[in-house]
Protein backbone atom coordinates (compact mmCIF):
# COMPACT_ATOMS: atom_id res chain seq x y z
CA UNK A 1 0.00 0.00 0.00
CA UNK A 2 0.96 3.63 -0.44
CA UNK A 3 1.47 5.70 2.71
CA UNK A 4 1.19 9.49 2.62
CA UNK A 5 2.57 11.37 5.60
CA UNK A 6 2.21 15.04 6.43
CA UNK A 7 4.41 16.58 9.14
CA UNK A 8 3.74 20.13 10.37
CA UNK A 9 4.75 22.23 13.33
CA UNK A 10 2.32 21.87 16.23
CA UNK A 11 -0.34 24.51 16.65
CA UNK A 12 0.96 27.22 18.94
CA UNK A 13 4.55 26.89 17.78
CA UNK A 14 5.66 29.85 15.70
CA UNK A 15 6.19 28.84 12.07
CA UNK A 16 8.51 31.51 10.63
CA UNK A 17 8.24 30.13 7.09
CA UNK A 18 4.45 30.13 7.31
CA UNK A 19 4.52 33.74 8.54
CA UNK A 20 6.80 34.82 5.67
CA UNK A 21 4.54 33.16 3.11
CA UNK A 22 1.48 34.71 4.74
CA UNK A 23 3.04 38.18 4.39
CA UNK A 24 3.93 37.46 0.76
CA UNK A 25 0.38 36.34 0.01
CA UNK A 26 -0.95 39.43 1.69
CA UNK A 27 1.31 41.71 -0.33
CA UNK A 28 0.13 39.97 -3.51
CA UNK A 29 -3.40 40.92 -2.63
CA UNK A 30 -4.64 37.57 -1.29
CA UNK A 31 -6.34 39.19 1.66
CA UNK A 32 -8.44 36.18 2.64
CA UNK A 33 -5.49 33.90 3.38
CA UNK A 34 -4.47 33.44 7.01
CA UNK A 35 -2.64 31.02 9.32
CA UNK A 36 -0.24 29.59 6.74
CA UNK A 37 1.59 26.53 8.07
CA UNK A 38 4.50 24.96 6.21
CA UNK A 39 5.17 21.27 6.53
CA UNK A 40 6.72 18.25 4.89
CA UNK A 41 5.05 15.68 2.72
CA UNK A 42 6.48 12.19 2.43
CA UNK A 43 5.15 9.10 0.71
CA UNK A 44 6.36 5.54 0.76
CA UNK A 45 5.37 2.06 -0.32
CA UNK A 46 4.64 -0.32 2.52
CA UNK A 47 4.74 -4.05 1.90
CA UNK A 48 1.95 -4.86 4.34
CA UNK A 49 -1.62 -6.03 3.73
CA UNK A 50 -2.90 -6.02 7.32
CA UNK A 51 -4.30 -2.53 7.91
CA UNK A 52 -3.89 -2.57 11.71
CA UNK A 53 -0.26 -3.70 11.44
CA UNK A 54 0.39 -1.09 8.75
CA UNK A 55 -1.05 1.68 10.90
CA UNK A 56 1.05 0.60 13.88
CA UNK A 57 4.17 0.45 11.75
CA UNK A 58 3.62 3.89 10.24
CA UNK A 59 2.92 5.38 13.67
CA UNK A 60 6.22 3.94 14.93
CA UNK A 61 8.07 5.41 11.92
CA UNK A 62 6.59 8.83 12.60
CA UNK A 63 7.28 8.78 16.32
CA UNK A 64 10.81 7.48 15.95
CA UNK A 65 12.11 9.35 12.92
CA UNK A 66 9.77 11.16 10.57
CA UNK A 67 8.43 13.71 13.07
CA UNK A 68 10.00 15.28 16.13
CA UNK A 69 7.03 15.20 18.46
CA UNK A 70 8.52 17.93 20.68
CA UNK A 71 7.67 20.44 17.95
CA UNK A 72 5.81 18.59 15.20
CA UNK A 73 2.57 16.71 14.62
CA UNK A 74 1.84 14.26 11.84
CA UNK A 75 -1.06 12.72 10.02
CA UNK A 76 -0.97 9.71 7.76
CA UNK A 77 -3.14 8.31 4.98
CA UNK A 78 -2.88 4.67 3.98
CA UNK A 79 -4.28 4.01 0.52
Amino acid at each position, binding site marked *: MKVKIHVT*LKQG*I*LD*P*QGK*AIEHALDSLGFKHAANVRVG*KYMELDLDQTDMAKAEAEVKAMCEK*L*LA*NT*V*IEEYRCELV
Partner: protein
Amino acid sequence: MNIGVVVFPGSNCDHDCQYVFRDVLGQDVTMVWHKETSLAGLDAVILPGGFSYGDYLRTGAIARFSPVMGAVKKFAADGGLVLGICNGFQILLEAGLLPGAMLRNESLHFICNDVFVRVENAATPFTGACKPGQVLKIPVAHADGNYYTDPVTLAGLQANAQIVFRYCASDGKVTPEANPNGSLDNIAGIRNAAGNVLGLMPHPERCAESVLGNEDGRLILASMVEGMNAKKGRAKALA
Protein backbone atom coordinates in the same frame (compact mmCIF):
# COMPACT_ATOMS: atom_id res chain seq x y z
CA MET B 1 43.45 13.48 28.28
CA ASN B 2 42.20 11.60 25.26
CA ILE B 3 39.42 13.53 23.54
CA GLY B 4 37.24 11.76 20.98
CA VAL B 5 35.85 13.82 18.10
CA VAL B 6 32.99 12.05 16.34
CA VAL B 7 32.96 12.37 12.55
CA PHE B 8 29.57 12.02 10.88
CA PRO B 9 29.12 12.21 7.11
CA GLY B 10 28.77 15.98 6.70
CA SER B 11 30.59 17.06 9.88
CA ASN B 12 32.77 20.04 8.99
CA CYS B 13 34.08 21.38 12.30
CA ASP B 14 35.67 18.08 13.33
CA HIS B 15 39.16 19.15 12.30
CA ASP B 16 38.80 22.51 14.05
CA CYS B 17 37.99 20.64 17.28
CA GLN B 18 40.91 18.27 16.70
CA TYR B 19 43.25 21.23 16.11
CA VAL B 20 42.23 23.13 19.24
CA PHE B 21 42.36 20.17 21.61
CA ARG B 22 45.59 18.80 20.13
CA ASP B 23 47.61 21.83 19.02
CA VAL B 24 46.29 24.57 21.28
CA LEU B 25 45.50 22.61 24.45
CA GLY B 26 48.08 19.84 24.03
CA GLN B 27 45.76 16.86 24.46
CA ASP B 28 45.52 13.55 22.63
CA VAL B 29 42.70 13.51 20.11
CA THR B 30 41.07 10.46 18.52
CA MET B 31 38.84 10.93 15.50
CA VAL B 32 35.88 8.55 15.87
CA TRP B 33 34.08 7.55 12.66
CA HIS B 34 30.31 7.38 13.15
CA LYS B 35 30.28 3.63 12.43
CA GLU B 36 32.31 2.93 15.58
CA THR B 37 30.46 1.24 18.42
CA SER B 38 32.98 1.73 21.23
CA LEU B 39 34.39 4.82 22.90
CA ALA B 40 36.73 2.87 25.20
CA GLY B 41 39.77 4.78 26.37
CA LEU B 42 38.30 8.23 25.79
CA ASP B 43 37.99 10.84 28.53
CA ALA B 44 35.49 13.07 26.71
CA VAL B 45 33.52 13.06 23.47
CA ILE B 46 32.84 15.98 21.14
CA LEU B 47 29.99 16.01 18.63
CA PRO B 48 31.21 18.70 16.23
CA GLY B 49 29.39 21.17 14.05
CA GLY B 50 28.50 20.66 10.43
CA PHE B 51 25.64 19.36 8.37
CA SER B 52 25.45 15.68 9.25
CA TYR B 53 23.52 13.78 6.59
CA GLY B 54 22.94 17.07 4.78
CA ASP B 55 20.48 18.17 7.50
CA TYR B 56 17.95 15.99 5.66
CA LEU B 57 14.55 15.59 7.35
CA ARG B 58 15.62 17.70 10.38
CA THR B 59 19.04 18.74 11.69
CA GLY B 60 20.53 15.81 13.57
CA ALA B 61 17.53 13.56 12.92
CA ILE B 62 19.44 10.91 10.98
CA ALA B 63 22.81 11.26 12.73
CA ARG B 64 21.18 10.29 16.01
CA PHE B 65 20.75 6.77 14.61
CA SER B 66 24.40 6.41 13.62
CA PRO B 67 25.99 3.35 15.28
CA VAL B 68 28.26 5.55 17.41
CA MET B 69 25.29 7.19 19.12
CA GLY B 70 24.55 4.04 21.12
CA ALA B 71 28.07 4.27 22.51
CA VAL B 72 27.66 8.02 23.13
CA LYS B 73 24.50 7.35 25.14
CA LYS B 74 26.28 4.75 27.24
CA PHE B 75 29.31 7.01 27.66
CA ALA B 76 27.01 9.79 28.90
CA ALA B 77 25.07 7.45 31.20
CA ASP B 78 28.39 6.37 32.75
CA GLY B 79 29.17 10.02 33.52
CA GLY B 80 31.56 10.79 30.63
CA LEU B 81 31.74 14.38 29.38
CA VAL B 82 29.90 14.94 26.11
CA LEU B 83 29.99 18.30 24.33
CA GLY B 84 27.78 19.00 21.33
CA ILE B 85 28.59 22.10 19.31
CA CYS B 86 26.00 23.50 16.88
CA ASN B 87 25.02 20.47 14.77
CA GLY B 88 26.35 18.39 17.68
CA PHE B 89 23.84 20.16 19.95
CA GLN B 90 21.07 19.45 17.44
CA ILE B 91 22.06 15.77 17.42
CA LEU B 92 22.00 15.63 21.25
CA LEU B 93 18.46 17.08 21.19
CA GLU B 94 17.26 14.59 18.57
CA ALA B 95 18.89 11.75 20.52
CA GLY B 96 17.09 12.80 23.69
CA LEU B 97 20.35 13.33 25.59
CA LEU B 98 19.22 16.92 26.08
CA PRO B 99 15.59 18.12 26.24
CA GLY B 100 13.88 20.26 23.61
CA ALA B 101 14.22 20.78 19.87
CA MET B 102 15.50 23.29 17.35
CA LEU B 103 13.25 25.34 15.12
CA ARG B 104 14.29 27.35 12.04
CA ASN B 105 15.77 30.73 13.02
CA GLU B 106 13.01 33.27 13.50
CA SER B 107 14.51 35.48 10.76
CA LEU B 108 14.73 32.46 8.41
CA HIS B 109 18.31 33.52 7.68
CA PHE B 110 21.44 31.46 8.09
CA ILE B 111 23.27 33.50 10.73
CA CYS B 112 27.07 33.63 10.65
CA ASN B 113 28.16 36.24 13.19
CA ASP B 114 29.91 36.87 16.45
CA VAL B 115 27.43 36.87 19.32
CA PHE B 116 27.73 37.49 23.04
CA VAL B 117 26.72 34.87 25.55
CA ARG B 118 26.57 35.14 29.32
CA VAL B 119 27.83 32.29 31.49
CA GLU B 120 24.77 31.51 33.61
CA ASN B 121 26.31 28.56 35.39
CA ALA B 122 30.07 28.59 35.99
CA ALA B 123 29.96 25.47 38.15
CA THR B 124 29.89 22.94 35.32
CA PRO B 125 32.70 20.80 33.86
CA PHE B 126 32.46 23.02 30.76
CA THR B 127 32.63 26.44 32.42
CA GLY B 128 34.94 25.96 35.41
CA ALA B 129 37.47 28.45 33.99
CA CYS B 130 34.77 31.12 33.53
CA LYS B 131 33.48 33.60 36.09
CA PRO B 132 29.75 33.54 36.89
CA GLY B 133 28.04 36.04 34.61
CA GLN B 134 31.12 36.40 32.39
CA VAL B 135 30.34 37.58 28.87
CA LEU B 136 31.99 35.63 26.05
CA LYS B 137 32.14 36.61 22.39
CA ILE B 138 31.80 33.51 20.24
CA PRO B 139 30.68 33.07 16.62
CA VAL B 140 27.50 31.27 15.61
CA ALA B 141 26.80 29.77 12.19
CA HIS B 142 23.42 28.12 11.86
CA ALA B 143 19.98 28.19 10.27
CA ASP B 144 18.24 26.10 12.93
CA GLY B 145 19.24 27.43 16.34
CA ASN B 146 15.88 28.61 17.62
CA TYR B 147 15.65 26.54 20.79
CA TYR B 148 12.20 25.40 21.85
CA THR B 149 10.86 23.29 24.65
CA ASP B 150 7.54 23.00 26.48
CA PRO B 151 6.88 25.31 29.47
CA VAL B 152 7.26 22.52 32.06
CA THR B 153 10.67 21.47 30.70
CA LEU B 154 11.77 25.11 30.49
CA ALA B 155 10.84 25.66 34.14
CA GLY B 156 12.90 22.59 35.02
CA LEU B 157 15.91 23.87 33.07
CA GLN B 158 15.65 27.22 34.87
CA ALA B 159 15.17 25.71 38.32
CA ASN B 160 18.08 23.27 37.99
CA ALA B 161 20.56 25.81 36.55
CA GLN B 162 20.68 23.76 33.33
CA ILE B 163 20.76 26.87 31.17
CA VAL B 164 24.50 27.38 30.93
CA PHE B 165 24.72 30.11 28.27
CA ARG B 166 22.25 32.85 27.29
CA TYR B 167 22.53 35.23 24.35
CA CYS B 168 23.16 38.73 25.68
CA ALA B 169 24.33 42.20 24.72
CA SER B 170 28.03 43.07 25.04
CA ASP B 171 27.36 44.41 28.55
CA GLY B 172 25.80 41.11 29.63
CA LYS B 173 22.17 42.24 29.55
CA VAL B 174 19.88 39.47 28.30
CA THR B 175 17.55 41.30 25.92
CA PRO B 176 15.30 40.30 23.01
CA GLU B 177 17.55 42.36 20.69
CA ALA B 178 20.57 40.26 21.68
CA ASN B 179 18.76 37.04 20.74
CA PRO B 180 19.99 36.15 17.23
CA ASN B 181 17.58 33.36 16.39
CA GLY B 182 14.44 33.57 18.51
CA SER B 183 15.54 30.98 21.08
CA LEU B 184 13.25 30.56 24.05
CA ASP B 185 14.59 32.48 27.06
CA ASN B 186 17.66 33.51 24.98
CA ILE B 187 19.02 29.98 25.41
CA ALA B 188 22.39 29.43 23.70
CA GLY B 189 23.46 26.32 25.62
CA ILE B 190 22.04 23.83 28.10
CA ARG B 191 23.30 20.90 30.11
CA ASN B 192 21.54 17.71 31.18
CA ALA B 193 20.31 17.14 34.73
CA ALA B 194 23.39 15.07 35.64
CA GLY B 195 25.62 17.88 34.37
CA ASN B 196 27.97 15.89 32.13
CA VAL B 197 26.34 16.60 28.75
CA LEU B 198 26.38 20.12 27.27
CA GLY B 199 25.05 21.42 23.99
CA LEU B 200 25.62 24.94 22.67
CA MET B 201 25.04 26.67 19.35
CA PRO B 202 28.09 29.01 19.37
CA HIS B 203 31.41 27.59 18.14
CA PRO B 204 34.11 27.86 20.87
CA GLU B 205 36.59 25.98 18.65
CA ARG B 206 36.54 28.89 16.19
CA CYS B 207 37.87 31.42 18.72
CA ALA B 208 40.40 29.60 20.86
CA GLU B 209 43.77 31.19 20.13
CA SER B 210 45.12 34.72 20.17
CA VAL B 211 46.24 34.71 16.54
CA LEU B 212 42.56 34.63 15.60
CA GLY B 213 41.91 37.75 17.66
CA ASN B 214 39.61 36.05 20.13
CA GLU B 215 40.33 33.41 22.74
CA ASP B 216 36.98 33.36 24.53
CA GLY B 217 36.07 29.91 23.21
CA ARG B 218 39.23 28.49 24.70
CA LEU B 219 37.77 29.03 28.19
CA ILE B 220 35.06 26.45 27.52
CA LEU B 221 37.31 23.79 26.00
CA ALA B 222 40.11 24.39 28.53
CA SER B 223 37.54 24.10 31.36
CA MET B 224 36.86 20.55 30.24
CA VAL B 225 40.56 19.65 30.16
CA GLU B 226 41.39 21.33 33.49
CA GLY B 227 38.36 19.78 35.19
CA MET B 228 39.26 16.27 33.99
CA ASN B 229 42.91 16.74 34.98
CA ALA B 230 41.90 17.87 38.47
CA LYS B 231 39.55 14.90 38.82
CA LYS B 232 42.25 12.46 37.72
CA GLY B 233 44.71 14.12 40.11
CA ARG B 234 42.30 13.72 43.01
CA ALA B 235 41.63 10.08 42.13
CA LYS B 236 45.39 9.46 41.99
CA ALA B 237 45.94 11.16 45.37
CA LEU B 238 43.24 9.00 46.95
CA ALA B 239 44.56 5.77 45.46
